[in-house]
């Protein structure tokens, strides 16, 4: 679905590259996470793939179309959700969606249904300028679905949203993916990536440091431990027990059989910890 080979990009058209020779591919129906701190080159890559920045060096194809030769036909099959809400603030939420729906040559979704899906049905006739930032973000998210895209570019789709709204947006992403939509997700939120992505790429300073599935990364970089809290002789005790050492496994069985267990937590590494371990950088 997406093939990127040795892609470079410089904003100043010199050797100061924002993106430095990255290569990756995204398969059809996959949710691919592009993870990295601010300024890592995530948005630059997405802008090149959607035609908002010119292809300078390397090659990139999306749905078998060279991104330097994008046509109307291409945009009929692509959805893009921007991180910063870019809406007509003097148009209502409904008018914004109706206007963008009118730009496509393919059948479009019912704007009212989309608004309902992102919880904006009640605010449909309110001007977008009167929306909160979270509401505007949800409207941008809904707009990117107006043409029922085959490939969907999402730039920080849950950034700044409250937990409940964030959960509903993540649910929509999962639903669309289950319907066959390929998703290119740009984020620095590792929990979102962990939950949604089939594979993730870590990008730092314009370079991809690794690409794999969150599960494989956890197995590779994490420790297989559980942390057990139990009560013994009236006091609360805590132990970390390996799941791979035979002696530790026996100890775990013994605790489960003889003590009052309060909590058990698996201590696998989080994607964030793996990111820091793999790249030496913290996510900001």
């Amino acid at each position, binding site marked *: 679905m997406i093939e990127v080979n040795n892609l470079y990009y410089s904003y100043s058209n010199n050797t100061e590259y924002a993106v430095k020779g990255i290569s990756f591919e995204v398969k059809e129906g996959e949710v691919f996470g592009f993870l990295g701190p601010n300024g890592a080159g995530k948005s630059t890559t997405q802008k090149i793939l959607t035609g*908002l920045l010119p292809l300078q060096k390397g090659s990139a194809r999306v749905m078998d179309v060279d991104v330097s030769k994008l046509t109307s036909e291409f*945009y009929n099959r692509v959805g893009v959700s921007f991180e910063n809400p870019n809406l007509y603030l*003097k148009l209502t939420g409904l008018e914004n969606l109706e206007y*963008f729906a009118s730009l496509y040559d393919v059948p479009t979704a019912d704007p009212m249904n989309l608004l309902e899906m992102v919880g904006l049905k009640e605010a449909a006739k309110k001007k977008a300028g009167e929306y909160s930032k979270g509401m505007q973000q949800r409207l941008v998210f809904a707009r990117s679905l107006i043409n029922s895209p085959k490939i969907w570019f999402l730039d920080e789709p849950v950034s700044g949203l409250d937990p409940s709204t964030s959960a509903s947006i993540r649910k929509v992403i999962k639903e669309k993916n289950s319907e066959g939509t390929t998703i290119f997700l740009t984020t620095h939120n590792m929990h979102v990536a962990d939950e949604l992505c089939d594979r993730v790429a870590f990008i730092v300073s314009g370079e991809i440091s690794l690409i794999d599935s969150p599960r494989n990364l956890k197995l590779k970089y994490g420790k297989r431990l559980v942390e057990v809290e139990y009560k013994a002789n009236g006091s609360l005790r805590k132990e970390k027990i390996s799941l791979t050492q035979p002696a530790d496994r026996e100890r775990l069985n013994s605790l489960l059989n003889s003590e009052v267990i309060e909590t058990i937590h698996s201590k696998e590494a989080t994607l964030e910890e793996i990111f820091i371990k793999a790249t030496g950088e913290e996510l900001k």
Partner: protein
Amino acid sequence: MRLFTNILKEVKLGWRSHFFLLTVGLAMAYFLLMTFLLPEDLSTNIELVLLTENDELANMLQLDSSESQASISIVNSREEMDSLMNGRFNSIGIIVKGSISSPSIELVFQGHEDAETKEFIKLFVATFLAGPDVEFTSERDIEYLHEIQSTSDKIPFNKSFLPIFLMFEAVMMGMIMVFAMVFSEKSQKTLHAYSVTPGKIWEYLGAKVILLALLGIVFTFILTPLVVGLGADYFILIIIVVVGSFLSTSVSLIVASFYKNLSQSMAAMLALTVVFTLPMLSYFSEGFSPWYLRILPTYPILFALKGAVFPEFSSSEISGLILVAIEAAAAFLIAVTTYKLRLRKG
């Protein structure tokens, strides 16, 4: 279809940004300005209003006035003089008492005359009374190389501003408003959202050009009938306003694309406005039309507007508009290319 929905969107945004209200308000303001603040006549021809006890002097003056640039009205009372002078900007009253050999003169001024004018009138009266042998310069001694259409002088001074105001607002309204629209959309980054749809840039910009031409037509159809009634050639007027608006909007789109916000672009916007309004010099001083004014696209627009607004006084040279239309189309193509390039630069 996409062009239509873009136009619809622009009209909604224009309406909610009060562009239509502003247009109607400006048209009314210009009408009030022309009606109540600008005088109908600002010519230097002086109208004398004479009140005299002596019929012989009155007859003499009436006879002489046929060869003079000054017109003379004879009145019979001070009240009649005040009534006549009230509302005649250039009139000056002369009250002559006593005999022709020993007259007593009282001059009645409007109050706005400068010292030179007052001295001139005093001298004129004194010279006239000095005797019939004094020769005054006559138009018979002047040979004009180019005959100026005598009727063109009859456009009232205040109404002569109509083509100027139409050019300022109907034709060049696009300039200021386009800058406001472009920078508002730049801050909202809506063009990025549009760029990832099948919509074309020419449709996006074309809708703005059409909105501003529409506002220009609204302005024209409010102000022109209020000032000249149904006497204008409205069909030609629409063509001129549309072509002129197309040009000024397209040029402004190009210029606006190079700046990030309104304050950065202020100098360029003002420079563009000044350059485009320079043909006004030729309008008010018909003998002054050097090549650097004639090559400006607003030059043929201004004179075509004059012809369309006052068809009985001057012919509308709309042939010059063909070149303006070609220039406008070229400017629009450049604007589309510029937006495509600048958009792809992020």
